[in-house]
Every structure is written in structure tokens, then in C-alpha cells.
């Protein structure tokens, strides 16, 4: 009974607990509700706050690395590589992972040809990572890779490098690649012009730091496109050798040789002196050597321009092949006296004699009969005063003054007709001649034949720019050029082949007038004359021989002698015999 009474009575503490407990529960419930509500609000954060949280999350789980892809390879028309990619390596070490620094230092010193003591000091430093050698060659990199198999803690970072296995060959056409390995960039030539196609895509890639995540690979599509050039490596080597020989023999300060297929505008070879080695571009002190004189240096072409003058006048019907004039050795135009190069009169001569004897007076007379309007219209049609739009970086347009320019005078009509007072690039000049060789149809010069992007192959099609003269006019002018070579240019003749050509000897203009005893000697010729397969331009700056017929024509002949073998062009009689039997010897492959 007493125990029951005691159970029915509650102590004051119990009473207090009974009264306060609901309050505590309510307070806890309110706090919990607030916390839960707060948790819900995290689902609808302001964008900037959400982004901040995402960044904090990503920083813990992933890191961003810069991934570069391989640059495209450049091949010549026969598939010989002209520019490839190789690797150098940066060698480093994590000292805390190397258990035996003395032995490792000995081995690394032998491989890297460095002081053993220096490497030992680096390997025993407190740093988490040290760079030991950078860059080292691929061969040394392979040796270090073998060492890595037995020694922990050595790192090897590949450094991509552009390599030109042919050395200086075609340096001006190729250009070079420079800059940070992470951000290579092509300069000049096709490396510069096709930078976008050649460059592999550079992307920032998020890499997970979670070991359970599968590694991501670089997509194959990121690799740069390969280029197949119209260039023929063997012909390029030939003209570079001949140019070097000509420079040595004539003491010329510079020169350019271009070989072009007139039927499709393919540039088979293009060389200039002085040149450089794209593998060691950084050792070049005079940066002007990077410019390609064949497309970016203008010169006064001289008498080769007479071919254009004669072709234009024939095309417009101003003169005919039978046209004659009385050559008195001089002519006055616009207040200046124009004389023949040999300072003598030739009497009554016909159109062909203007080219055969390279008569300045004859060319000026023809230009005068054409009138300035037709004359400059035809020069523009031949492409002078405007870039050829060849696919090379750094092309110049040349300088063609017309009556619409303030500094033009009437005398320019006379001097322009034989290639003085007008500035052209060697490529413009050979393109004009190629048009005559190609029955009057001017083709767009091109250097790249194919762009290979993975399995996709884009082939550039030969493009006809314009018809500068009719086939009849082209045939007549070609015939006159053959006569020119046969009658006055023994140095340019090639036994067994009909060669069409013309020399040029231009004075060099300076701010003080034309220089004395200095010239730009040139020769442009093509063969076989009746079905031209190749046009060659030879230009030498300031040679000791002065005249194009003396210094440039022999270079053309030496090149032509090898070209007919390299390009498998049989002598004319053999070719005609083969054709008469149904053979094919002049098929245009591209």
C-alpha cells in the first residue's frame, strides 16, 4: 500500500521535466524545420552561387590540362616527307621518390652529359620535383625511358618539335614553325598560309582525379591535316644546286629559279638565294632572308616583257607577224629618248626581229601604236599589278603605273614595253609566260595539290584564271620565241628539243636613278615548244656577266638538260614518233 502511494506522488523534478519537455521538443522541431527548409533552398541557388559551388566541387575532383594534337605532315608530289614531327624530351625527377640518388645521378650524368655532382644535388633537394635537362634529343629520351623501367621517380615529358628532314631544301616554300610547344604557329610559305589546316586542335581537357573514372583519350579528329604539295623534291634539289652554282660562278648577290607546269599551274620547284635552314630558323640574324623573293620581291623584268608587248599587240590586231617598221636605233616618247641595247639601228625589221634582236625601239614603237589604254589593259590581263593569289604567305602585287596614277608619264608607255619602269615578281612573270605556253590560257599557280584530313582527301582542281590571248596568237608568239633561241641564244639551246625563250637584262633602279654596271639578268623558257610541259624562270641579281644571254641562259640549259630526264620528256623526234604510234607522253596527271 505504501509503495503504491509513493508511485502515485511525483517529485518536483519530474513535474518540472514534464512541463519543460514539450517546450524543448517544440524548439528542436522548429530548429530542425528551419534546417530542413534551408537544405531545400540549396536546390534553388542563384546561378553565380551555384557556379561557385560547382567550381569548388570540380577543383576537388578534376584538373584542367592543355592538350595539343599533332601538326599535319607536308609531302612533296611523290609522297616524300618535307616536314614531319619529332619529339624532344624534358627530363625531371621527384627527389622524394628516389631511393638511391648517388647511383641515379651517376647514370643520368652519363646519359645527359652533365655534371654528376650537380645532378646529385638536385636529386637530394627538398623540392617535390626538379627539372634536370630540357630539351634533350629523342635518342637520349629513349635511353631515359629504359632507365625509368628500373628507377622510380624520374619523369620524361615529350616536347613536340617540327623537323624538316631535307634541311634547307624548299625552305622558302615550306616556311617554318615557331613558338611555344603548346602553341606552335607556322610562319611564311605553306606553314604560314595553311596554318589553320596544318595545326592540330588545342583544347583544354578536364581530367578526373578519381581513380575509378576511366581515362579520356585525345580524339583522332584533333590532328592537323596533311598537305601534299605540287613540288617535286628531285626537281627542287636540281634547281637549288644549279642556283648555288650560278651564284658562285657569276658572283651574283641573289637569285631565283622557278619551274612550273603551264598546263595546270603546278609549281614544281621554286628556289631563291639567300636561303635558310628551317630547322635552325632561330639562328638567323637577318630576318629578311625568311621572305620568299619569288613572290615577295619585285624587280624590273627587262626584255622578257617584250614577249608580253608583242603578244598583246598581235592579240588586239594592232600588228601582224608581217608588220614592219624602220628601226633608226632610237625613238623619242614623252620627252625621253629610247635606244636599243646595242646602241645601233637595224633598219626595216619585222615583228619577230623585235624579239630575236631584243629591240627596245621596236617594243616601244608597238606600244605607241597600241596606245596607252589597250597596252595597260593587256598588261592587267596578263596579271601585272595584282597578286597571283598563289597559296603561299607574303605575296606582293608588284607595281604597275597607269595613266590614272599621278606619277605616270607618257615616257612610261615606252619604257614599260621593254620591261623598265614596271615592277613584277618572278612568279607573276613566269605565270604570264606559262599562259602563252598553255595556248593563251592563264592557270592559277598553286603549291598545294591535296589536303588530307583523316580519311577525307580534298584535291585542288587546276583553275583557269583567264584567257590572255587566243591560241593562234600564243602559237605565233611561241614560234617567234623559238626563233629567238635558235637565232640568237645558243646558250639556251637544248639538242633534240625545240625551246622557246627570251632573255631579260634590266638595269637596277635606285633613288638616285639606274645603277651603272649592275643588272638583273633573267631568262624564261619553255619546252617542248609545240607542246610545252615545263616553264623555267632563271633570275640572277647583279651577276658579273651582266647580260641575261650570258649568265641566265646557260643556267636554263643546264636545268633543262636534267629536267627532260627527270620528267621523262623524250626528244621531239622520239615524242612525235611515239605519238604517231598512239603512245601517250604528255598526259597531265593533275
Amino acid at each position, binding site marked *: 500500500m505504501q509503495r503504491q502511494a509513493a508511485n502515485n506522488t511525483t517529485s518536483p523534478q519530474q513535474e518540472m521535466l514534464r512541463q519543460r519537455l514539450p517546450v524543448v521538443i517544440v524548439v528542436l522541431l522548429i530548429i530542425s524545420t528551419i534546417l530542413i527548409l534551408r537544405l531545400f533552398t540549396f536546390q534553388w541557388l542563384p546561378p553565380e552561387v551555384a557556379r561557385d559551388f560547382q567550381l569548388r566541387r570540380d577543383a576537388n575532383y578534376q584538373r584542367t590540362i592543355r592538350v595539343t594534337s599533332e601538326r599535319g605532315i607536308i609531302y612533296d608530289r611523290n609522297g616524300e616527307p618535307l616536314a614531319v614531327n619529332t619529339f624532344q624530351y624534358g627530363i625531371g625527377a621527384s627527389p622524394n621518390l628516389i631511393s638511391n640518388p648517388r647511383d641515379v645521378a651517376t647514370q643520368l650524368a652519363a646519359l645527359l652529359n652533365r655534371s654528376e655532382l650537380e645532378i646529385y644535388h638536385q636529386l637530394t633537394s627538398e623540392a617535390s620535383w626538379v627539372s634536370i635537362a630540357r630539351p634533350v634529343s629523342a635518342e637520349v629520351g629513349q635511353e631515359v625511358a629504359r632507365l625509368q623501367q628500373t628507377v622510380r621517380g624520374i619523369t620524361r615529358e615529350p616536347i613536340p618539335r617540327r*623537323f624538316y*628532314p631535307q634541311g634547307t*631544301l624548299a625552305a622558302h616554300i615550306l616556311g617554318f614553325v615557331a613558338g611555344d610547344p603548346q602553341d606552335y604557329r607556322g610562319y611564311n610559305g605553306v606553314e604560314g598560309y595553311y596554318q589553320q589546316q596544318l595545326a592540330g586542335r588545342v583544347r583544354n581537357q578536364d581530367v578526373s582525379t578519381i581513380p575509378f573514372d576511366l581515362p579520356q583519350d585525345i580524339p583522332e579528329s584533333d590532328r592537323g591535316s596533311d598537305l601534299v604539295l605540287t613540288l617535286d623534291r*628531285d626537281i627542287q634539289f636540281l634547281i637549288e644546286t644549279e642556283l648555288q652554282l650560278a651564284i658562285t660562278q657569276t658572283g651574283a648577290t641573289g637569285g631565283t629559279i622557278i619551274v612550273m607546269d603551264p598546263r595546270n599551274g603546278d609549281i614544281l620547284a621554286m628556289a631563291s638565294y639567300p636561303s635558310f635552314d628551317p630547322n635552325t630558323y632561330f639562328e638567323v640574324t637577318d630576318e629578311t632572308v625568311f621572305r620568299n623573293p619569288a613572290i615577295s620581291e619585285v624587280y624590273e623584268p627587262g626584255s622578257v616583257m617584250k614577249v608580253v608587248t608583242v603578244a598583246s599587240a598581235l592579240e588586239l590586231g594592232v600588228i601582224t607577224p608581217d608588220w614592219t617598221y624602220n628601226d633608226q636605233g632610237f625613238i623619242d616618247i614623252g620627252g625621253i629618248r629610247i635606244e636599243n641595247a646595242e646602241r645601233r639601228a637595224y633598219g626595216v625589221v619585222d615583228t619577230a626581229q623585235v624579239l630575236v634582236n631584243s629591240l627596245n625601239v621596236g617594243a616601244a614603237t608597238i606600244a605607241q601604236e597600241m596606245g596607252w589604254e589597250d597596252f595597260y589593259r593587256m598588261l592587267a590581263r596578263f596579271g601585272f599589278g595584282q597578286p597571283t593569289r598563289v597559296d603561299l604567305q607574303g605575296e606582293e602585287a608588284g607595281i604597275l603605273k597607269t595613266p590614272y596614277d599621278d606619277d605616270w608619264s607618257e615616257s612610261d608607255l615606252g619604257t614599260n614595253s621593254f620591261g623598265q619602269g614596271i615592277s613584277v615578281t618572278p612568279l607573276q612573270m613566269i605565270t604570264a609566260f606559262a599562259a602563252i605556253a598553255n595556248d593563251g590560257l592563264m592557270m592559277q599557280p598553286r603549291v598545294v595539290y591535296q589536303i588530307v584530313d583523316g580519311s577525307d582527301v580534298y584535291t585542288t582542281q587546276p583553275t583557269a584564271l583567264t584567257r590572255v590571248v587566243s591560241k593562234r596568237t600564243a602559237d605565233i608568239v611561241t614560234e617567234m620565241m623559238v626563233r629567238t633561241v635558235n637565232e640568237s641564244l645558243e646558250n639556251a639551246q637544248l639538242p633534240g628539243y625545240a625551246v622557246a625563250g627570251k632573255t631579260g637584262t634590266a638595269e637596277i633602279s635606285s633613288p638616285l636613278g639606274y645603277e651603272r654596271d649592275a643588272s638583273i639578268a633573267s631568262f624564261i623558257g619553255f619546252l617542248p615548244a609545240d607542246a610545252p610541259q615545263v616553264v623555267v624562270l632563271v633570275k640572277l641579281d647583279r651577276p658579273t656577266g651582266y647580260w641575261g644571254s650570258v649568265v641566265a641562259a646557260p643556267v636554263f640549259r643546264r636545268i633543262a638538260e*636534267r629536267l*627532260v630526264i627527270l620528267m621523262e620528256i623524250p626528244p621531239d623526234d622520239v615524242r612525235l614518233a611515239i605519238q604517231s*604510234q598512239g603512245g*601517250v607522253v604528255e598526259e597531265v596527271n593533275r
Partner: protein
Amino acid sequence: MSQNWIQHTLRRRRWRPQNQAAALATLGVIIALIIGVLYLSQVSSNATTGRQLADLIAERNELQSMNEQLRAEIAELRSVPRLLARARELGFVPAGQDQIEYLVIEGYNPHRDETVAPLQDEEPQLPVYDESFGGWLQQQLDNLRAQFEGFSNAGE
């Protein structure tokens, strides 16, 4: 008799919910354990595959860079000055025009496109899939063995 049976049933019925709960809980734990084991197995299998993949990618990259290097060396060895020097060493001289004879062969076109015989497709070696329980168990054991081998290799 019938009254005893009812009483017996009622007596059992008082304990039945507890037994059911215990059974359910045990079942839940077992299922959770199976799911846990499966999950861990899958994750570790993934990690092992990831490591193998990373190793293969590194190996492939190494081979590619070596290939590039070899390509560059071949191109350098095939450069014209080297070929010319080697040809001269072997006694060759450049052919002159008078040493070349052109022959006419009826129907022969020297500029024809090259024809290459197509490669015969190889039978792809497909992995063997075994959907049986024994196959699954063997696969898990193989994965486990591969993981241990991976760990022991990494430790060496």
C-alpha cells in the same frame, strides 16, 4: 481438441509479426550485402580496367612518338644529298640524254594509276561471353585475381 488447436494458433500468432520483421530485416541485410559486394566488385573492376586503359594509352602514345621519330629518321636518310652520295659510292653516275633510249610499247601507259591488291579482312576475335552463374563467378574471380596482380605489380 478443436479448442486447443485455436489456442495454439492464437499463441503462435502473437509471435508471428516479430518473426516476419526479423526475417525481413535479415533478408534486407543479405540483399544489401549482395548489392554492396556487387558494387564494390564493379567499381574495382572499373578501376582495374581504367589503369589498364591508361597504361595502353601511354604505351600507344610512346609507340606513336617512336613511329614519328623513325619516320623522320627515314626521311632524313632518304634525303637527296644522302641518296646522291650513296649512289656515287656505289659507282652510279647521272644518266645523260644520249644514254637514254625510249621504247614504244603498244598499249602501255606509263602514267596509269597504281593498283594495289585489297587486304583480306581478318576474322575479328570476339571475346567469349558466358551468361551462366558459373561464368559470372569465374569472371569475378578473374577480375579479383587481375586486381591483386595489378596491386602486386604496382608495389614492385
